[in-house]
């Protein structure tokens, strides 16, 4: 039986929305207060969804302890209490949560024990982003196409 395991992780980080493609006035116009020079921060929540057959020996899609170790090593240790703009992945991209979603999706794709379906990132309680590798997220797919 195919089931879906959802796990939520939390990290806090700062960032600043800014691109060298725009001049100072254009950055200010497009990004508003998110462009303030010294940055600001968020408590991010990352929700990952993995699918796979339930292993009859364990009752699990994948071992949660393995997923948590993977997340600690690849997500939390890299992003928590960091300035996102200083990370290699944002050297040439604006540190929007759209770009962060794609990066975190890419990162969890290498977890070997189950199939990554999607990531859902809450930047604040009012803003959230879903990335399912280009497909619509599960909740928003046409019925019958899951």
């Amino acid at each position, binding site marked *: *039986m195919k*089931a879906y395991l959802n796990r*939520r992780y939390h990290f806090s980080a700062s960032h600043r929305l800014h691109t060298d493609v725009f001049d100072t006035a254009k950055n200010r116009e497009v990004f508003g207060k998110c462009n303030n020079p010294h940055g600001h921060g968020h408590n991010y929540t990352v929700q990952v969804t993995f699918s796979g057959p*339930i292993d009859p020996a*364990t*009752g699990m899609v994948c071992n949660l302890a393995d997923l948590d170790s993977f997340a600690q090593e690849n997500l939390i240790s890299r992003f928590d209490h960091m300035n996102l703009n200083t990370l290699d992945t944002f050297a040439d991209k604006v540190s929007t949560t759209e770009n962060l979603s794609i990066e975190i999706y890419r990162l969890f794709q290498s977890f070997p024990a189950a199939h990554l379906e999607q990531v859902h990132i809450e930047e604040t309680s009012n803003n959230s982003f879903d990335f399912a590798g280009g497909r619509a997220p*599960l909740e928003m797919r046409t*019925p019958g196409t*899951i």
Partner: protein
Amino acid sequence: MIFLTRKAEFSSSHFYWNPQWSPEENQRVFGKCANRNGHGHNYTLEVTVAGEVDPTSGFVVDLKELKDILEREVVSVYDHRHLNLEVPEFKSAIPTTENIAVAIWNRLDNKIPNARLHRVRVYEMPDLFADYYGEP
């Protein structure tokens, strides 16, 4: 088509143990979840059904009826029970969040009038939950 979701809560104890493995192997794979006296959670169940709106009542399903079905089929069986010891489907299956979602699906499938069961979501904690859509 409308998708309608109803929540219910139950509090249960459980432990993870594969009787075909040695105690050491159970401990290695399941860690503290293998403690034989069990531990417990406040589970939240979300049941999503899909259907068309009845033109007379304006309902997909009568929520009171859905609430009663969840109470009868799931909550009255699981709440304040030890899942491994007191719920029949977990005599043979480990009561992981995934297996609980499948078991609840099996309990509810074809029992909800005028709607199709779409998804069973079981939260073991706010940061850990499993979904089952009836897929083989």
